């Protein structure tokens, strides 16, 4: 049942969550009360019924806003996979649903980490509909699908688990490479919609920041592999259009997480990555993850994450793995970051021959064409 609604009232009265940031609010024309029909990515108008684990919701501006019982929120229907918090599915029941993520993802709780309290409970009022009567979905407002660009250097950030230090590593490397003169994109290809990582990338100075929400997904958990690959390519494509020569791509959670594991197991996806960072909390998880990556034929360019803060853990891992360990300060240092990129390129049989950020040092050596602002990577003869 679709009822006409006062779109302006919804736009004004509700707290619109970060996941809805791409949606033009003037597109809202009605409300579908049949909330059980919600699909992943649909926009849901809901009322806060009980405050639980998430006491705040992140607004489209990236500011966390305190929630009060009775608040109206616009959130996106989605699943969540978070070993430290909740696992939930992208389904809604009229009698109530769960706020699975502070970025604004609503679904149905399946499992919770024992340390988590009950989720914040929402009463879905309806699905926001457009003038055609269809539920508004994030995919309708996503970036235009694009192919990945040639010539861009792509570095993946993987980790042992949630909160291993991937985002910090990607942000710091984005900062270091930016200071080294590169135009860097920081992207998140999998995960659950939230502002934390996006903000961290912006704060680091990345020239282009986007995540899977920009590719039309509230969460990538349980999304088809092909959709994730297409989303990754779209993000890379737009990063290329934004003039970025290097893209850092975070893959959420650990290497065993279903979608991340499938991406890394896909040779065609691995071929997109010129280098791989691996973040771990401790030496044993470093050893396990590095062994897993090496089993896939991937030699991590650098070991990072929380482990890097512990000299003893670094010593343990160093003895076991013979791998460079870099902490956040090292990754953020332009000399180190520039050398890391050069090593990654060299490992691919490539050489960075020109990386002028649009100035005097145009042109290239070795016959490769490259415009200002581009890092031109050429295969060594």
């Amino acid at each position, binding site marked *: 049942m679709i009822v006409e609604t006062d779109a302006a009232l919804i736009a004004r009265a509700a707290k619109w969550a970060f996941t809805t940031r791409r949606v033009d609010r003037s597109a809202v024309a009605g409300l579908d009360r049949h909330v059980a029909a919600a699909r992943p990515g649909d926009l849901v108008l809901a009322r806060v019924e009980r405050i639980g684990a998430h006491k705040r919701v992140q607004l489209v501006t990236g500011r966390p806003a305190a929630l009060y019982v009775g608040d109206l929120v616009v959130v996106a229907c989605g699943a969540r996979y978070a070993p430290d918090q909740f696992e939930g599915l992208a389904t809604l029941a009229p009698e109530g649903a769960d706020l699975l993520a502070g970025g604004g993802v609503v679904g149905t709780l399946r499992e919770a980490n024992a340390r988590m309290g009950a989720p914040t409970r929402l009463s879905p009022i309806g699905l926001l509909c457009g003038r055609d009567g269809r539920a508004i979905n994030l995919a309708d407002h996503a970036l235009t699908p694009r192919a990945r660009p040639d010539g861009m250097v792509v570095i993946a950030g993987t980790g042992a688990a949630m909160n291993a230090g991937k985002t910090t590593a990607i942000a710091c490397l984005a900062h270091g490479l930016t200071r080294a*003169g590169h135009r860097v994109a920081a992207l998140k290809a999998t995960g659950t919609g939230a502002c934390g990582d996006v903000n961290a990338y912006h704060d680091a100075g990345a020239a282009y920041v986007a995540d899977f929400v920009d590719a039309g997904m509230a969460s990538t958990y349980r999304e088809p592999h092909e959709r994730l690959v297409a989303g990754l390519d779209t993000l890379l494509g737009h990063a290329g259009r934004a003039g970025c020569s290097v893209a850092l791509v975070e893959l959420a959670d650990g290497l065993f997480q279903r979608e991340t594991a499938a991406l890394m197991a896909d040779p065609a996806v691995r071929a997109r990555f010129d280098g791989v960072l691996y973040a771990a909390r401790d030496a044993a998880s470093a050893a396990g993850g590095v062994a897993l990556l090496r089993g896939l034929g991937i030699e991590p360019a650098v070991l990072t994450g929380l482990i890097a803060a512990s000299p003893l853990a670094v010593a343990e891992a160093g003895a076991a793995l013979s791998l460079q360990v870099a902490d956040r300060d090292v990754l953020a240092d332009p000399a180190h970051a520039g050398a*890391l990129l050069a090593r990654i390129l060299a490992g691919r049989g490539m050489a960075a021959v020109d990386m*002028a950020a*649009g*100035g*005097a*040092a145009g042109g290239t050596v070795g016959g490769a064409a490259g415009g200002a602002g581009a890092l031109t990577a050429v295969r060594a003869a």
Partner: protein
Amino acid sequence: MGDLVANCPALGHPVRATAPSPAVAMAPSGTPADAGRSGGPNEEPSGGRSGAPSVGSSEAPGEAPSAGSSGAGTAFTRRWIAPAGRTGLGAWIAQPRRPDPAAPALVAVHGIKRGVREQAAAFAPLAAAAGRTVIAPEFDALRWPSFQQAVRRGRADLAFARLLDDLGLQGLVPGPSVDLVGYSAGAQFAHRFAMLHPQRVRRLTLCAAGWYTMPDEAPFPYGLGAGDGAAAPWGPLMQARLGEYLALPITITVGAHDDVADVHTRRNPALDGQQGQDRRTRACRYAAALERAARQRGLPAPTLAVLPGAGHDFAACLAAGLGPLALNARRQPR
């Protein structure tokens, strides 16, 4: 000329030795080159404290040598930019009255005696004629006693990069990279900076470095091998970017008579064995080593210029043609 090449013991094959045009040795009285001579033999000119009060105002007009020029077109002003914050660098800026907004800045790094103002003055007339700004940063002795190694405590390389960023915001450094010239300890700094941050350098000119970080496996700072303790990472970092460094147009210069070690020359058996005992031998060996490394990568060789008549004396090097080399190297920038 031929003798100069023959006397470079490391040179078995043609690294180009260049005697630049003597024209620049004829700077008229009162020009910076002339002022530089006051430093005397074996001295980098000592300009005293380089802060603004020494010139009485924040703007000190200067005139380029007027020979053959209209005068106004080559005029420049000099001013001191104070260090920003506790770790910032101050700099003398010599800015043409008619700057070419697209022309790269020349950054001239002083030696161990820190003749900052003279660095700016020395290159300013020629630079101004091409609409180019000269920047002479100061690594003051208290805060930056080991600036020439670039990566010692305090990280002179990052302070220098920050200065370039700040000056870029003021419109004084167009583009991401600069032409970099260093004299003596400044040449040590310049080549190490360029090896760590090749993207910030468009053209590199080294004059009379005391010694070099060679493109070999000796432990850093003598080579690109892993050093001890705090020096551990830097050699491998530079090794990773060696290809980018060698792709720069590099000119290595040294006075023809800078062939006797003095009290400032670092000496130890390993260094002497690797690079030779004096600056001229060391420059020649460095040029030869860079040439070998460049050839292996299919890159052009660096240029070696042995400056006729000059000892370890900035003014004499300038008189023998350092200026045109720094501003207009033989190879076109990439």
